[in-house]
């Protein structure tokens, strides 16, 4: 039972409350609003600010906490990845839908044929990783928050702005899933 907690998949009612607890915990420690995508802005401000006003702020003062958290995320992923895991029980309906667009295995965390360095060199891999990554970064900062800042911190604070952003997240995600992915993977490219 205890070992399963460390090696097996966690149900949503264990992970969700734990993730949600981050919001009040960070507030109670330092009063900061929990969010992750701002770290991307911090890295830009630290490396290539040029003369852009958006990157002219003290990233050390405002970003040290979240950059440290991002390092923790990498370490946490490393620790979890070293433990043997039985994988996620993916719904049979999703498996069938993905098989229809050429993704035959739902083992692991990502489709093995796409999310590798050799997969990146293919057109579908390039669109999904480079194109997807670009849109994630651009959109998160345009909307002023991502899943953590808007869907969790913002909705927790009952912000309408966050609700609108989250509706946008889903509109875009549905479009990608049901229109773009079949085109990209189903031989459209």
């Amino acid at each position, binding site marked *: 039972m205890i070992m399963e907690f460390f090696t097996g998949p966690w149900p949503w009612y264990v992970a969700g409350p734990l993730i949600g607890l981050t919001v*009040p915990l960070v507030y109670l420690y*330092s009063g900061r609003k929990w969010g992750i995508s701002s770290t991307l802005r911090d890295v*830009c401000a630290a490396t290539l600010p040029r003369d852009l006003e958006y990157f002219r702020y003290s990233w050390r003062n405002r970003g040290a906490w979240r950059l440290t958290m991002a390092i923790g*995320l990498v370490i946490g992923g490393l620790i979890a990845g070293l433990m043997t895991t039985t994988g*996620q029980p993916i719904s049979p309906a999703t498996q069938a839908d993905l098989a229809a667009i050429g993704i035959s295995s739902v083992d692991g965390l*990502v489709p093995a044929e796409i999310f590798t360095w050799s997969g*990146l060199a293919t057109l579908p891999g390039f669109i999904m990783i480079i194109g*997807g990554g670009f849109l994630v970064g651009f959109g998160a900062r345009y909307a002023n928050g991502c899943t953590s800042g808007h869907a969790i911190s913002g909705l927790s604070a009952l912000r309408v702005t966050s609700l609108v952003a989250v509706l946008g997240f889903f509109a875009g995600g549905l479009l*990608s899933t049901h229109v773009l992915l079949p085109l990209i993977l189903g031989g459209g490219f």
Partner: protein
Amino acid sequence: MDQVTLNPASADGTDDQTAGIKPDPATIRPERLWPYLLVGVVLGIAFTRSGVISWFRIQEMFRFQSIHMYGIIGSAVVVGAVGIQLIKRLEARSVTNRPIEIPTETFTAPGWQYWLGGTVFGLGWGLLGACPGPIYVLFGNGVTVMAAGFLSALAGVWTYGALRHRLPHS
């Protein structure tokens, strides 16, 4: 310094418009970084174990074929909302005595940045199967090609920074 460089009419509302008591700056205690490292490690493990970083779980969500991701986001919001309400009602102070930055910004139609920026983000989320947190966690899990996704996300943020004066906001 930060206050001077921020444009008040910018999309940075959540950084500026906050509720709560503003303590005397002289009473603010130094902030340690190790608690954030710990938060990151715990979240990295939770994101992995619960499949938040699974490309397949995100597909399941956008195909409405499992309650899993909705359960995670929904229960996280409930716990977060109860926490925020308690902080407000009890007028809690932070350990470091910094002001508690609960966002108070209001929505003004049409709110371009929220729905347009949100939709752009969602398009990327559906393709990459990862939002910013999971990009870090997947890299830690050995999906090293996420480094390319990360660099591309940085390019996206930089492009937004360069174009933002030409993009509609609120």
